[in-house]
């Protein structure tokens, strides 16, 4: 009996405890539900959307009605269907941009923090210089070089967020590098690579997960901004930022074309931020010890 309860208190439980802590936060749960809802919408877009997003299904600029819940756009396409299909682009933009910025960013931060010395100096100066650009400006530099398109927009947003990861990971690695278990890992003959991956990265994963979640939201925002400027997705793609830009000229006569895609962005980004903040609270090691 006593042994059984000891086993339940075993060390494998932090993830379980983290999810309990996560689910105890109403905001985080709401965020997760909204986010999962959007993912379902993105996956099932062809089944859910009432019309084809690129087909002219009705008269142009029809106000929201029973037939077209969110109205029709300047060409007569169904706004609701376009918003639904737009979720595919925005969500994949968020994920791809995070992968493109996160993976090299984490590697750079890990190398700088772990090796220190000149490696750190070189990487840190490079990261400082990237941080000297506000992120949309950095994205603009990349777009300027590669040309406006949806793929380049994802690359640009990824690069724009890279320095944030590098800085965060470097700091976290510095904090755990001098722990005895790292030294022990080296002493028993682990290679640098193995030590970094198995012993350091695994211990700094919580802040990375939190940052990545928050960055999905900001990547979607930056991407939509670029598309709004004409520097991201190109017509006739149903991209939320682009849709707002297209409706802008007739805002006075047909407000629904520009405003509904913005509501979609707002809800996705808020959801990402709520989930990110929830994860931060749930994974905070200080709270875990308490």
């Amino acid at each position, binding site marked *: 009996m006593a042994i059984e309860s000891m086993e339940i208190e075993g060390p494998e439980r932090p993830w379980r405890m983290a999810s309990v802590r996560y689910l105890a936060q109403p905001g985080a749960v709401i965020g997760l539900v909204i986010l999962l809802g959007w993912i379902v919408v993105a996956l099932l877009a062809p089944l859910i959307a009432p019309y084809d997003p690129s087909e002219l299904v009705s008269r142009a600029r029809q106000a929201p009605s029973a037939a077209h819940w969110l109205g029709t756009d300047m060409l007569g396409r169904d706004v609701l269907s376009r918003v639904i299909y737009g979720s595919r682009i925005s969500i994949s933009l968020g994920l791809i941009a995070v992968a493109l910025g996160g993976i090299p960013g984490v590697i750079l931060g890990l190398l700088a923090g772990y090796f220190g010395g000149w490696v750190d100096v070189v990487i840190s100066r490079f990261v400082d210089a990237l941080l000297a650009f506000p992120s949309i400006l950095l994205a603009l530099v990349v777009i300027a070089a590669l040309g406006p398109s949806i793929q380049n927009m994802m690359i640009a947003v990824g690069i724009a967020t890279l320095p944030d990861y590098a800085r965060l990971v470097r700091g976290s690695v510095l904090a755990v590098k001098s722990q005895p278990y790292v030294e022990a890992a080296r002493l028993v003959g682990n290679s640098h690579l193995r030590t970094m991956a198995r012993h350091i990265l695994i211990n700094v994963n919580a802040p990375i997960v939190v940052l990545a979640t928050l960055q999905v939201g900001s990547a979607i925002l930056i991407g939509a901004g670029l598309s709004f400027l*004409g520097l991201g997705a190109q017509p006739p793609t149903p991209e939320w930022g682009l849709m707002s830009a297209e409706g802008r000229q007739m805002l006075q006569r047909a407000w629904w074309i520009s405003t509904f895609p913005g509501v979609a962005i707002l809800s996705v980004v808020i959801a990402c931020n709520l989930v990110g903040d929830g994860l931060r609270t749930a994974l905070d090691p200080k709270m875990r010890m308490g």
Partner: protein
Amino acid sequence: MGRYVLGRLFQLVPVLILISLIVFAVMHLLPGDPALLMLAGAEGGAITPERLNELREQMGLNDPLAVQYMNFVFNAVQGDLGSSIRFQVPVTELILDRFGSTMELAVAGLVVAIAIGMPLGMIAAARKGGWIDTLCMTLSYVGSSMPVYWLGLLLVLLFSFTLGWFPSAGGGSFQALVLPAVTLGLLSAGVLARLIRSSMLEVATEDYMRTARAKGLPPRLIILRHGLKNAMIPVLTMMGLQFGALLAGTVVTETVFSRPGLGRLIVNAILAKDYPLVQGSILFLAVVYLLVNLAVDIAYGWLDPRIRYGH
């Protein structure tokens, strides 16, 4: 203090070199020949090898990269950022022409952010857990999750089209500045409010705050004189960063409100593949951003002597 300022200026040099390298490298090393891009982007001329080579020669693209970079930096330091392909005038002239309008917008945005964010954050901290606190935090959350252009469009819809109070587009007048400034400022106001709140709450547990309460100072005075002044130190750093965000935000805001400015200049230059103009104006904005943050750092050292004498 003088030594501190000099030291900070000196630290700027490597960052400046790296920024120029990044802008230069991105423009030159990535796939895509700028001369070819330019010919393709120019109004309709056929692309012949002769024209391409002539243009490459004219732009110095046939020189070794190191030489090109040295020329770029040498000229940039003297204020020569080359000539715009599209407008056929010096890039510096175009930038300075529009910079005033962009600065005006960014500063006005900062004023809006402070005017709204500071009182909100202070009230939220003073009445922690109350409905104002909840409202403030919700607003700042929503604000930081909102696309800038979308907020701009909503404001135009309400204040220009429905109420008719302010023009929806253009520049030059104070009337035309209001909506763009509010658009920009509201987003930063949320960030600022949240920061001031947490900073004030942190300061509230300090000994001197307890002393102030113990000696019977009225709460208003405690918050303003003892709380706010100390809480401002981290807030100030954040404001530097926020100013950068505001400067960057002008890129989108200027497009929403059709305001002539540096941001719109950059966007149009990218769309027109006006490559020297893009390079020059992005470099310029990055340097301005850097200088603003330097100014904030110096103000920071002046407010808090511990920073000056420490490291």
